[in-house]
């Protein structure tokens, strides 16, 4: 599917989206990995990252986005994020601590940074799970139209007129 025609006639939208999407994705990563020093963390980062992807999908077409991040990939990443979180907890148990006791991870760090390492790892898990889940939910809404053979045009093409009805 090509980008919806009404959006294609809006060069400003396309140029701005092209310029902004990488910045949004980068900001998402910044929030992800700076969450232990400033406000933010995996949850917000995942949402911001997905917001960037959705902007891309709305302007350039959902199918172009799905070539980058397929539905199957989002479903796998949803589980991967949760599993990563749980794995860190189990890792702590294997190393002789309590479940999710990151102090046991001191082993892998220079000095006593196990807590810090653990927090970074589980925040990555949270970020992956949240980003994948929100994108999967978005795909569900968009894909429902695709499934029912109406096409995602009405939604993907013109955000100002959801439902494809004129006001």
């Amino acid at each position, binding site marked *: *599917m090509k980008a919806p025609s009404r959006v294609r006639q809006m060069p400003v939208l396309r140029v701005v989206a092209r310029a902004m999407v990488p910045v949004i994705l980068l900001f998402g990563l910044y929030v992800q990995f700076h969450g*232990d*020093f400033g406000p933010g963390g995996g949850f*917000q980062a995942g*949402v911001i990252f997905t917001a960037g992807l959705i902007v891309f999908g709305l302007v350039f077409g959902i199918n172009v986005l799905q070539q980058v991040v397929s539905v199957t990939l989002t479903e796998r990443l949803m589980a991967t994020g949760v599993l990563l979180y749980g794995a860190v907890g189990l890792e702590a148990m294997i190393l002789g601590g309590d479940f999710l006791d*990151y102090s046991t991870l001191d082993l892998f760090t220079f000095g006593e*940074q196990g807590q810090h390492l653990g*927090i970074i790892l589980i925040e990555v898990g949270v970020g992956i799970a949240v980003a994948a889940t929100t994108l999967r939910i978005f795909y569900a809404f968009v894909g429902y139209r695709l499934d029912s053979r109406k096409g995602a045009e009405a939604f993907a093409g013109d955000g100002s007129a959801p439902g494809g009805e004129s006001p």
Partner: protein
Amino acid sequence: MPPVELLLMLLLLATVIVVARLKDLFAAAMLTGIASLIAAGLFVLMDAVDVAFTEAAVGAGISTVLFLGALSLTSRREKQRERPRALPLLIVIVTGAALIYGTWDLPAYGDADAMIHQYLEPDLIAETERKIHIPNIVTAILASFRGYDTLGEVVVILTAGVGVALLLGGSGRRPGDAAGEEER
């Protein structure tokens, strides 16, 4: 209450009243996003930056997009209700009154002597840097001290995603039709 907070509160109140009265669901969805943004501004003024961040990203960002996505599957206008019903209105008024009654027992805004600032909080502020080695206390609490809770939350999010995927599908996978190959 400081004037900026008061102004934002009044704006928030006006926004939600308009949302409740609007029949145009598209405008209502956009105004819901604006209400979230105003709430995020209030949280910033209350020094709850992490909460404000989440409110702005989730409430004003993703929720609005998902509302619009849901709207694209249904009608743009709310169905006309014949006349307001008495029982739901009564339930709402009673619940609201109970909540307002509950706020009388809350400590005053910014009260340093409030219970929540006496118990646990001084320890957390004093010990986090030494125990966890990161400066952001909120992240330390969410990810380490309350690691179980956060794991539970992530599982809830996964469950929500799986639920929506099972209910709406939307994978684009149809028998005898390659995914997303729809030509216009």
